[in-house]
């Protein structure tokens, strides 16, 4: 099994959703989460506050500087993510496709390097 990061990209240019559609996408995303928990693919997931809430820390030189974020100003931003476990890319992208449809956002699929398994780290 390989773990994949499914990044939810808030991209400009997608059709604007009505309030009802937004509420529906929350419901659908919740249902999708339940499904991948039940199927055993779910590892972790989270939605993020807007990029305006981000701060940047630079302690590479030991000076520990903190500045207002985000670090990279782009029109596209990471809005949330899932970490899933799948047999291969085809399974991962089939899951990503369902997630994208539920949350009405573009999803990027990216494999993790070999995952460090910590004893007892996962319930």
């Amino acid at each position, binding site marked *: 099994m*390989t773990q994949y990061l499914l990044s939810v990209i808030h991209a400009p240019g997608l059709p604007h959703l009505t309030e009802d559609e937004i509420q529906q996408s929350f419901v659908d995303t919740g249902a999708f989460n339940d499904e991948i928990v039940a199927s055993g693919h779910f590892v972790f997931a989270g939605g993020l506050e807007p990029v305006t809430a981000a701060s940047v820390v630079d302690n590479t030189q030991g000076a520990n500087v903190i500045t207002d974020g985000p670090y990279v100003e782009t029109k596209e931003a990471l809005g949330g993510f899932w970490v899933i476990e799948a*047999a*291969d*890319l*085809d399974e*991962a*992208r089939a899951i990503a496709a369902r997630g994208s449809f539920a949350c009405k956002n573009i999803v990027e*699929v*990216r*494999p993790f*390097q070999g995952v460090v398994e910590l004893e007892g780290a996962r319930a």
Partner: protein
Amino acid sequence: MTGSPSEPGPADLSARITEIVRTEHGRVVATLIRRLGDIDLAEDAAAEALLTALERWPGDGIPPNPGAWLTRTAGNKAIDRIRRESKRDAKHAEATMLMDAHQNDGPHEDTGPVTDDRLRLVFTCCHPALALDNRVALTLRLLGGLTVAEIANAFLVPETTMAQRITRSKQKIKAAKIPYRVPREEDLLTRLGGVMTVLYLIFNEGYLASSGTGVRVDLCTEAIRLTRQLTGLIEDPELGGLLALMLLTEARREARFVDGALVTLEHQDRSQWDPTLIDEGHTLVRRCLAINRPGPYQLQAAINAVHTDALDVSMTDWSQIVQLYDQLLVVQPSPVVELNRAVAVAELDGPEVALAITERLDLSTYHPWHVTRAELLRRLGRTGDATAAYDDALALVENQAERTHLLRRRDSL
């Protein structure tokens, strides 16, 4: 065996070995990838086996089943390497396990179309998660057995660029776990479409290279060979249509260039067309269309079949060609198809009607649009407009043979 009068000379033998090695490369590598689970290891082992073949076969003679010989030799090389490179117990155990599998697997067995390893490999190389250029490069390298230098040369990019492209693609396959298997039934047709795109792109790049001079025969031959192999592994009318389309196009190759200039269909010396390829193409078109699931490749092949049916351009059945384009527009609506249809309409209803269709199309960055306009304007006696249209086309064309042709057309106005 040596010394008999029918024995081929060293030059023939070397050509024969090269041919075998290229034909068998995909199968050997594909089988090894499944057994070893590692593309690089499989490739290296295959390369070593091929070198051994080149050393031994001229003296020992070509073995009765060269593919099996190459697979067995490459498998042994891989096991040797795993043993050599690591003395660790785990690796050693792995090698022993592989060796057992290798020996029990039997020599190069043909286990039927569905389990043919080459089919797994083609779907991995043409996976939609890889960029199109990378799919093309990987397919030619792993299935076609072309060297990185040959592929780089064919696509006019530096060898280091091509090497990087191939290496990155292989890394992505490994890191992202792009699966090594034939897609499930519900995905198969879509994924096969992606494979056909790659094969047709290889063919077209060879047929009328986007720059440089004329045809790059190697790419056409390679595309046909790979498509032919695939038709033996998977039954699909569109795949048959693609092969027919390639064969009927390839059949006209000899007639397409005279003294470094492109010769268009209507001016070609049809006695130079290859009758064997045309026969095979026609048979395929008939067989595919009889299944009654027409798709873009079959219809384009059918159009080419009508063209190659006419002994002389005046005998062309233009109404059938227009009908086929109408069908093609239904399954693949595109301005390029409409443009090609307009060319046939010109023969049926005259240049005025065809020009009206052409002018409606938004294709000003596509040089054949300017060429079509130029030819239609020429027939309508609008010399000044035609000259301008040839110039617009020339500004977009890099292929030398096509430039020569267009310059001649313009200057003969």
